[in-house]
Protein backbone atom coordinates (compact mmCIF):
# COMPACT_ATOMS: atom_id res chain seq x y z
CA UNK A 1 0.00 0.00 0.00
CA UNK A 2 1.21 3.50 -0.85
CA UNK A 3 1.03 6.05 1.94
CA UNK A 4 0.58 9.78 1.41
CA UNK A 5 1.30 11.77 4.55
CA UNK A 6 -0.60 15.09 4.47
CA UNK A 7 -0.84 15.58 8.21
CA UNK A 8 -0.56 19.23 9.19
CA UNK A 9 -1.51 20.29 5.67
CA UNK A 10 -4.69 22.31 5.12
CA UNK A 11 -7.33 21.59 2.52
CA UNK A 12 -7.07 21.41 -0.46
CA UNK A 13 -3.44 20.27 -0.02
CA UNK A 14 -4.25 16.65 1.05
CA UNK A 15 -6.35 16.24 -2.12
CA UNK A 16 -3.55 17.73 -4.23
CA UNK A 17 -1.07 15.34 -2.58
CA UNK A 18 -3.37 12.42 -3.37
CA UNK A 19 -3.81 13.49 -7.01
CA UNK A 20 -0.06 13.93 -7.43
CA UNK A 21 0.58 10.43 -6.03
CA UNK A 22 -1.85 8.74 -8.44
CA UNK A 23 0.45 8.43 -11.51
CA UNK A 24 2.80 6.26 -9.40
CA UNK A 25 -0.03 3.91 -8.34
CA UNK A 26 -0.89 0.72 -10.23
CA UNK A 27 -4.54 0.05 -11.09
CA UNK A 28 -5.96 -2.10 -8.28
CA UNK A 29 -3.50 -0.74 -5.71
CA UNK A 30 -4.65 1.07 -2.55
CA UNK A 31 -3.43 4.50 -1.42
CA UNK A 32 -3.71 5.49 2.21
CA UNK A 33 -3.91 9.24 2.81
CA UNK A 34 -3.06 10.53 6.28
CA UNK A 35 -4.73 13.91 6.79
CA UNK A 36 -5.87 15.75 9.89
CA UNK A 37 -7.63 18.64 8.18
CA UNK A 38 -11.37 18.19 8.94
CA UNK A 39 -12.32 18.81 5.29
CA UNK A 40 -10.44 15.68 4.15
CA UNK A 41 -13.18 13.38 5.49
CA UNK A 42 -15.60 15.00 3.06
CA UNK A 43 -13.32 15.89 0.17
CA UNK A 44 -11.46 12.58 -0.32
CA UNK A 45 -14.72 10.67 -1.06
CA UNK A 46 -15.90 13.61 -3.22
CA UNK A 47 -12.62 13.51 -5.17
CA UNK A 48 -13.03 9.76 -5.72
CA UNK A 49 -16.55 10.30 -7.07
CA UNK A 50 -15.43 13.10 -9.42
CA UNK A 51 -12.38 11.15 -10.64
CA UNK A 52 -14.02 7.72 -10.87
CA UNK A 53 -11.80 6.13 -8.22
CA UNK A 54 -12.99 3.85 -5.43
CA UNK A 55 -13.23 5.22 -1.89
CA UNK A 56 -12.69 2.40 0.62
CA UNK A 57 -13.40 4.35 3.79
CA UNK A 58 -11.57 5.56 6.85
CA UNK A 59 -10.04 2.60 8.75
CA UNK A 60 -8.92 4.85 11.58
CA UNK A 61 -8.99 8.52 12.57
CA UNK A 62 -7.22 10.83 10.08
CA UNK A 63 -6.62 7.96 7.61
CA UNK A 64 -8.47 7.41 4.32
CA UNK A 65 -8.08 4.63 1.76
CA UNK A 66 -8.58 4.91 -1.99
CA UNK A 67 -8.28 2.14 -4.58
CA UNK A 68 -7.10 3.13 -8.04
CA UNK A 69 -9.57 1.54 -10.46
CA UNK A 70 -8.71 3.41 -13.68
Amino acid sequence: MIEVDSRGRRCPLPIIDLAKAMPGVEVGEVVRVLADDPAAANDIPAWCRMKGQEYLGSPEADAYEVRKVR
Partner: protein
Amino acid sequence: MHPVARQALLAALEDGWADPDRLYAAGRRAQQLREAATATVAQCIGVRPDEVTFLPSGTAAAHAAVLGGLAGRARAGKTFVHSAIEHSAVLHAAARHEQAREVGVDRLGRLDLTAWGEAVSAPGTALAALISASHEVGTVQPIEEAAAVCADNGVPLYVDAAQSLGHSPVPAGWSLLTASARKWGGPAGVGLLVVRKGVRWLSPYPGDDLHRPHAEGSVNLPEIVAAAASLRAVMAEAEAEAARLGPLIEKIREKVAETVPDVEIVGDPDVRLPHLVTFSCLYVDGEALLHALDRHGFAVSSGSSCTASTLRPSHVLEAMGVLSHGNVRVSLHRGSTEADVDRFLAVLPGLVEAIRKEAGM
Protein backbone atom coordinates in the same frame (compact mmCIF):
# COMPACT_ATOMS: atom_id res chain seq x y z
CA MET B 1 -29.97 48.30 0.22
CA HIS B 2 -33.04 48.65 -1.98
CA PRO B 3 -33.70 52.33 -2.90
CA VAL B 4 -37.19 52.11 -1.36
CA ALA B 5 -35.61 50.99 1.95
CA ARG B 6 -33.29 53.97 1.85
CA GLN B 7 -36.10 56.44 1.18
CA ALA B 8 -38.33 54.95 3.86
CA LEU B 9 -35.47 54.92 6.38
CA LEU B 10 -34.68 58.60 5.84
CA ALA B 11 -38.36 59.58 6.11
CA ALA B 12 -38.88 57.47 9.22
CA LEU B 13 -35.83 58.96 10.94
CA GLU B 14 -37.72 62.28 10.87
CA ASP B 15 -41.03 60.94 12.08
CA GLY B 16 -40.43 57.63 13.84
CA TRP B 17 -37.74 58.34 16.40
CA ALA B 18 -40.03 58.23 19.44
CA ASP B 19 -40.95 55.20 21.56
CA PRO B 20 -44.18 53.81 20.06
CA ASP B 21 -45.32 52.67 23.51
CA ARG B 22 -45.53 56.25 24.86
CA LEU B 23 -48.72 58.28 24.92
CA TYR B 24 -47.40 61.69 23.85
CA ALA B 25 -47.95 62.93 20.29
CA ALA B 26 -44.56 61.80 18.89
CA GLY B 27 -45.07 58.40 20.51
CA ARG B 28 -48.49 58.08 18.90
CA ARG B 29 -47.02 58.93 15.49
CA ALA B 30 -44.38 56.28 16.04
CA GLN B 31 -47.10 53.84 17.02
CA GLN B 32 -48.96 54.53 13.78
CA LEU B 33 -45.77 53.89 11.83
CA ARG B 34 -45.22 50.61 13.67
CA GLU B 35 -48.77 49.50 12.99
CA ALA B 36 -48.51 50.40 9.31
CA ALA B 37 -45.19 48.53 8.97
CA THR B 38 -46.61 45.48 10.76
CA ALA B 39 -49.72 45.50 8.56
CA THR B 40 -47.58 45.76 5.41
CA VAL B 41 -45.41 42.79 6.38
CA ALA B 42 -48.47 40.77 7.43
CA GLN B 43 -50.10 41.44 4.06
CA CYS B 44 -46.92 40.47 2.18
CA ILE B 45 -46.73 37.13 3.98
CA GLY B 46 -50.48 36.53 4.13
CA VAL B 47 -50.87 36.46 7.92
CA ARG B 48 -52.58 38.56 10.62
CA PRO B 49 -50.72 41.63 11.94
CA ASP B 50 -50.76 40.29 15.52
CA GLU B 51 -48.81 37.24 14.31
CA VAL B 52 -45.85 39.41 13.23
CA THR B 53 -42.96 40.41 15.53
CA PHE B 54 -39.88 42.44 14.69
CA LEU B 55 -36.60 41.42 16.32
CA PRO B 56 -33.10 42.91 16.06
CA SER B 57 -31.78 40.44 13.43
CA GLY B 58 -32.51 37.29 11.48
CA THR B 59 -30.29 35.41 13.92
CA ALA B 60 -32.22 36.72 16.93
CA ALA B 61 -35.46 35.72 15.19
CA ALA B 62 -34.16 32.18 14.48
CA HIS B 63 -33.08 31.78 18.11
CA ALA B 64 -36.46 33.03 19.34
CA ALA B 65 -38.34 30.69 16.98
CA VAL B 66 -36.41 27.58 18.05
CA LEU B 67 -36.14 28.26 21.78
CA GLY B 68 -39.63 29.78 22.15
CA GLY B 69 -41.21 27.10 19.97
CA LEU B 70 -39.60 24.35 22.06
CA ALA B 71 -40.53 26.04 25.35
CA GLY B 72 -44.15 26.28 24.25
CA ARG B 73 -44.22 22.55 23.54
CA ALA B 74 -42.32 21.37 26.62
CA ARG B 75 -45.28 19.31 27.79
CA ALA B 76 -45.61 17.55 24.41
CA GLY B 77 -42.00 16.52 24.14
CA LYS B 78 -38.34 17.46 24.13
CA THR B 79 -37.03 16.43 20.72
CA PHE B 80 -36.13 19.09 18.17
CA VAL B 81 -36.13 17.68 14.63
CA HIS B 82 -34.22 19.68 12.02
CA SER B 83 -32.66 19.23 8.60
CA ALA B 84 -28.89 18.88 8.33
CA ILE B 85 -28.72 22.05 6.23
CA GLU B 86 -30.27 24.59 8.60
CA HIS B 87 -28.56 27.94 9.11
CA SER B 88 -25.92 27.88 11.85
CA ALA B 89 -28.16 30.12 14.01
CA VAL B 90 -30.74 27.32 14.13
CA LEU B 91 -28.09 24.66 14.77
CA HIS B 92 -26.59 26.68 17.63
CA ALA B 93 -30.05 27.12 19.16
CA ALA B 94 -30.54 23.35 18.74
CA ALA B 95 -27.26 22.73 20.57
CA ARG B 96 -28.74 24.52 23.61
CA HIS B 97 -31.45 21.91 23.63
CA GLU B 98 -30.84 18.49 25.12
CA GLN B 99 -32.44 16.41 22.38
CA ALA B 100 -32.01 17.17 18.71
CA ARG B 101 -32.51 14.85 15.76
CA GLU B 102 -30.99 15.70 12.41
CA VAL B 103 -32.53 14.67 9.08
CA GLY B 104 -30.22 14.33 6.09
CA VAL B 105 -30.33 15.54 2.50
CA ASP B 106 -29.31 13.94 -0.80
CA ARG B 107 -26.44 14.92 -3.13
CA LEU B 108 -28.54 17.80 -4.55
CA GLY B 109 -29.36 19.11 -1.07
CA ARG B 110 -33.00 17.92 -1.00
CA LEU B 111 -34.54 16.83 2.30
CA ASP B 112 -34.94 13.08 2.82
CA LEU B 113 -38.73 13.10 3.28
CA THR B 114 -38.89 9.46 4.42
CA ALA B 115 -36.39 10.10 7.23
CA TRP B 116 -38.23 13.34 8.01
CA GLY B 117 -41.50 11.42 8.43
CA GLU B 118 -39.84 8.90 10.76
CA ALA B 119 -38.28 11.65 12.87
CA VAL B 120 -41.38 13.87 13.08
CA SER B 121 -43.71 10.96 13.96
CA ALA B 122 -41.44 9.63 16.71
CA PRO B 123 -42.87 10.09 20.22
CA GLY B 124 -41.69 13.20 22.04
CA THR B 125 -41.11 15.45 19.03
CA ALA B 126 -41.71 19.03 20.16
CA LEU B 127 -40.79 21.08 17.10
CA ALA B 128 -39.47 20.54 13.58
CA ALA B 129 -37.37 23.00 11.55
CA LEU B 130 -36.81 23.15 7.81
CA ILE B 131 -35.08 25.96 5.93
CA SER B 132 -37.20 27.17 2.97
CA ALA B 133 -34.22 26.98 0.60
CA SER B 134 -30.59 26.30 1.30
CA HIS B 135 -28.73 29.54 1.95
CA GLU B 136 -25.55 27.95 0.62
CA VAL B 137 -26.58 25.98 -2.44
CA GLY B 138 -30.02 27.38 -3.31
CA THR B 139 -31.94 24.08 -3.33
CA VAL B 140 -35.60 24.79 -2.51
CA GLN B 141 -36.97 22.44 0.14
CA PRO B 142 -40.30 20.55 -0.04
CA ILE B 143 -41.92 22.73 2.63
CA GLU B 144 -45.51 21.83 1.85
CA GLU B 145 -44.86 18.07 1.93
CA ALA B 146 -42.80 18.42 5.14
CA ALA B 147 -45.56 20.59 6.66
CA ALA B 148 -48.21 17.99 5.82
CA VAL B 149 -46.20 15.36 7.72
CA CYS B 150 -45.93 17.75 10.69
CA ALA B 151 -49.67 18.50 10.61
CA ASP B 152 -50.51 14.76 10.58
CA ASN B 153 -48.42 14.35 13.72
CA GLY B 154 -49.49 17.56 15.47
CA VAL B 155 -45.93 18.92 15.43
CA PRO B 156 -45.42 22.63 14.68
CA LEU B 157 -43.09 23.40 11.76
CA TYR B 158 -40.61 26.27 11.91
CA VAL B 159 -39.47 27.57 8.51
CA ASP B 160 -36.37 29.75 8.19
CA ALA B 161 -37.31 31.77 5.10
CA ALA B 162 -34.37 34.19 5.25
CA GLN B 163 -33.06 33.13 1.86
CA SER B 164 -36.35 33.02 -0.04
CA LEU B 165 -38.66 35.72 1.38
CA GLY B 166 -38.87 38.48 -1.21
CA HIS B 167 -37.46 36.24 -3.96
CA SER B 168 -40.04 33.47 -4.22
CA PRO B 169 -43.58 32.88 -2.92
CA VAL B 170 -44.10 32.00 0.76
CA PRO B 171 -44.99 28.29 1.04
CA ALA B 172 -48.03 27.18 3.05
CA GLY B 173 -48.45 25.02 6.13
CA TRP B 174 -45.87 26.34 8.60
CA SER B 175 -46.43 27.34 12.25
CA LEU B 176 -43.43 29.64 12.80
CA LEU B 177 -41.43 31.55 10.21
CA THR B 178 -38.41 33.84 10.39
CA ALA B 179 -36.58 36.08 7.93
CA SER B 180 -33.97 38.81 7.84
CA ALA B 181 -34.58 42.22 6.25
CA ARG B 182 -31.02 42.59 4.93
CA LYS B 183 -31.58 39.48 2.81
CA TRP B 184 -34.46 41.10 0.91
CA GLY B 185 -32.69 44.42 0.49
CA GLY B 186 -33.80 46.06 3.73
CA PRO B 187 -31.59 47.36 6.57
CA ALA B 188 -29.37 44.99 8.57
CA GLY B 189 -30.95 45.39 12.00
CA VAL B 190 -34.39 43.87 11.45
CA GLY B 191 -35.39 40.25 11.89
CA LEU B 192 -38.88 38.93 11.45
CA LEU B 193 -40.64 36.28 13.52
CA VAL B 194 -44.13 35.12 12.62
CA VAL B 195 -46.02 32.82 14.98
CA ARG B 196 -49.37 31.61 13.69
CA LYS B 197 -52.43 31.84 15.91
CA GLY B 198 -52.91 28.73 18.01
CA VAL B 199 -49.20 27.94 18.09
CA ARG B 200 -47.82 27.94 21.61
CA TRP B 201 -44.71 30.09 21.95
CA LEU B 202 -43.12 30.89 25.31
CA SER B 203 -40.44 33.50 25.69
CA PRO B 204 -37.06 31.85 26.31
CA TYR B 205 -35.70 35.13 27.67
CA PRO B 206 -35.63 36.29 31.30
CA GLY B 207 -37.89 38.95 32.75
CA ASP B 208 -40.79 38.47 30.45
CA ASP B 209 -44.21 37.05 31.14
CA LEU B 210 -45.82 37.82 27.80
CA HIS B 211 -46.88 34.70 25.94
CA ARG B 212 -46.35 36.54 22.70
CA PRO B 213 -43.01 37.30 21.12
CA HIS B 214 -41.62 40.81 21.28
CA ALA B 215 -38.18 42.34 21.09
CA GLU B 216 -36.09 42.67 24.23
CA GLY B 217 -36.00 46.40 24.86
CA SER B 218 -37.04 49.05 22.40
CA VAL B 219 -37.24 48.43 18.68
CA ASN B 220 -35.45 50.32 15.92
CA LEU B 221 -38.59 51.71 14.35
CA PRO B 222 -37.07 53.61 11.37
CA GLU B 223 -35.35 50.41 10.25
CA ILE B 224 -38.57 48.44 10.69
CA VAL B 225 -40.41 50.96 8.50
CA ALA B 226 -37.66 50.63 5.88
CA ALA B 227 -37.77 46.82 6.12
CA ALA B 228 -41.54 46.74 5.55
CA ALA B 229 -41.46 49.21 2.65
CA SER B 230 -38.64 47.34 0.92
CA LEU B 231 -40.32 43.94 1.40
CA ARG B 232 -43.42 45.23 -0.38
CA ALA B 233 -41.30 46.72 -3.18
CA VAL B 234 -39.16 43.61 -3.57
CA MET B 235 -42.17 41.29 -3.65
CA ALA B 236 -43.80 43.43 -6.34
CA GLU B 237 -40.65 43.02 -8.45
CA ALA B 238 -39.96 39.39 -7.49
CA GLU B 239 -41.53 37.67 -10.46
CA ALA B 240 -39.83 39.94 -12.99
CA GLU B 241 -36.50 39.67 -11.14
CA ALA B 242 -36.72 35.87 -11.04
CA ALA B 243 -37.43 35.85 -14.79
CA ARG B 244 -34.39 38.07 -15.37
CA LEU B 245 -31.94 36.38 -12.94
CA GLY B 246 -32.99 32.76 -13.54
CA PRO B 247 -31.47 32.62 -17.05
CA LEU B 248 -28.31 34.39 -15.84
CA ILE B 249 -27.84 31.72 -13.13
CA GLU B 250 -28.53 29.06 -15.77
CA LYS B 251 -25.82 30.65 -17.91
CA ILE B 252 -23.32 30.53 -15.02
CA ARG B 253 -24.18 26.89 -14.32
CA GLU B 254 -23.66 25.91 -17.97
CA LYS B 255 -20.61 28.04 -18.77
CA VAL B 256 -18.66 27.24 -15.60
CA ALA B 257 -19.13 23.51 -16.22
CA GLU B 258 -17.99 24.03 -19.83
CA THR B 259 -14.99 26.31 -19.30
CA VAL B 260 -13.55 25.21 -15.95
CA PRO B 261 -12.22 21.64 -15.81
CA ASP B 262 -12.77 19.53 -12.65
CA VAL B 263 -15.62 21.62 -11.31
CA GLU B 264 -18.73 20.46 -9.49
CA ILE B 265 -21.86 22.60 -9.82
CA VAL B 266 -23.68 22.19 -6.54
CA GLY B 267 -27.41 22.10 -5.71
CA ASP B 268 -30.62 21.18 -7.49
CA PRO B 269 -30.45 22.28 -11.16
CA ASP B 270 -34.20 22.94 -11.36
CA VAL B 271 -35.85 23.32 -7.94
CA ARG B 272 -33.71 26.18 -6.73
CA LEU B 273 -33.66 29.86 -5.81
CA PRO B 274 -33.60 32.09 -8.89
CA HIS B 275 -30.67 34.26 -7.82
CA LEU B 276 -28.00 31.97 -6.39
CA VAL B 277 -25.49 29.45 -7.73
CA THR B 278 -22.72 27.48 -6.00
CA PHE B 279 -19.82 25.47 -7.42
CA SER B 280 -16.61 23.84 -6.16
CA CYS B 281 -13.31 23.73 -8.06
CA LEU B 282 -11.01 20.77 -7.44
CA TYR B 283 -7.48 21.57 -6.15
CA VAL B 284 -8.37 25.22 -5.55
CA ASP B 285 -7.98 27.10 -2.28
CA GLY B 286 -11.36 28.80 -1.77
CA GLU B 287 -9.84 31.80 -0.03
CA ALA B 288 -7.33 32.36 -2.84
CA LEU B 289 -10.13 32.25 -5.43
CA LEU B 290 -12.30 34.58 -3.36
CA HIS B 291 -9.48 37.15 -3.16
CA ALA B 292 -8.66 36.79 -6.86
CA LEU B 293 -12.31 37.45 -7.75
CA ASP B 294 -12.40 40.37 -5.31
CA ARG B 295 -9.47 41.97 -7.13
CA HIS B 296 -11.64 41.84 -10.26
CA GLY B 297 -14.51 43.50 -8.39
CA PHE B 298 -16.61 40.41 -7.68
CA ALA B 299 -17.89 39.96 -4.13
CA VAL B 300 -18.67 36.25 -3.73
CA SER B 301 -18.97 33.93 -0.72
CA SER B 302 -17.47 30.53 -0.02
CA GLY B 303 -18.33 27.49 2.08
CA SER B 304 -14.74 26.24 2.09
CA SER B 305 -13.11 25.64 5.45
CA CYS B 306 -10.19 27.96 4.69
CA THR B 307 -12.64 30.89 4.44
CA ALA B 308 -14.56 29.99 7.61
CA SER B 309 -13.78 31.31 11.06
CA THR B 310 -14.25 27.74 12.33
CA LEU B 311 -11.72 26.20 9.90
CA ARG B 312 -14.34 23.55 9.23
CA PRO B 313 -15.95 23.04 5.84
CA SER B 314 -19.57 24.09 5.46
CA HIS B 315 -21.95 21.69 7.20
CA VAL B 316 -24.29 22.04 4.22
CA LEU B 317 -21.69 20.86 1.68
CA GLU B 318 -20.71 18.06 4.08
CA ALA B 319 -24.32 16.94 4.50
CA MET B 320 -24.62 16.77 0.69
CA GLY B 321 -21.29 14.95 0.34
CA VAL B 322 -20.06 17.37 -2.33
CA LEU B 323 -16.59 18.81 -2.69
CA SER B 324 -16.09 21.50 -0.05
CA HIS B 325 -12.83 23.12 -1.11
CA GLY B 326 -12.56 25.66 -3.93
CA ASN B 327 -16.15 26.59 -3.20
CA VAL B 328 -17.73 29.75 -4.59
CA ARG B 329 -21.27 31.04 -4.08
CA VAL B 330 -22.54 33.71 -6.45
CA SER B 331 -25.64 35.66 -5.39
CA LEU B 332 -27.13 37.98 -7.99
CA HIS B 333 -29.14 41.02 -6.94
CA ARG B 334 -31.21 43.71 -8.61
CA GLY B 335 -28.06 45.59 -9.66
CA SER B 336 -26.46 42.54 -11.34
CA THR B 337 -26.47 42.72 -15.13
CA GLU B 338 -25.81 40.25 -17.92
CA ALA B 339 -22.59 42.17 -18.65
CA ASP B 340 -21.40 41.54 -15.05
CA VAL B 341 -22.14 37.83 -15.46
CA ASP B 342 -20.30 37.70 -18.78
CA ARG B 343 -17.27 39.43 -17.31
CA PHE B 344 -17.30 36.99 -14.37
CA LEU B 345 -17.45 34.05 -16.76
CA ALA B 346 -14.61 35.52 -18.80
CA VAL B 347 -12.17 35.94 -15.89
CA LEU B 348 -13.03 32.84 -13.81
CA PRO B 349 -11.32 30.09 -15.89
CA GLY B 350 -7.99 31.96 -15.92
CA LEU B 351 -8.08 32.63 -12.18
CA VAL B 352 -8.81 28.96 -11.39
CA GLU B 353 -6.04 27.86 -13.76
CA ALA B 354 -3.51 30.23 -12.16
CA ILE B 355 -4.29 28.99 -8.63
CA ARG B 356 -3.99 25.37 -9.77
CA LYS B 357 -0.71 26.06 -11.53
CA GLU B 358 0.69 27.63 -8.37
CA ALA B 359 -0.23 24.46 -6.46
CA GLY B 360 1.54 22.36 -9.12
CA MET B 361 -1.64 20.93 -10.65
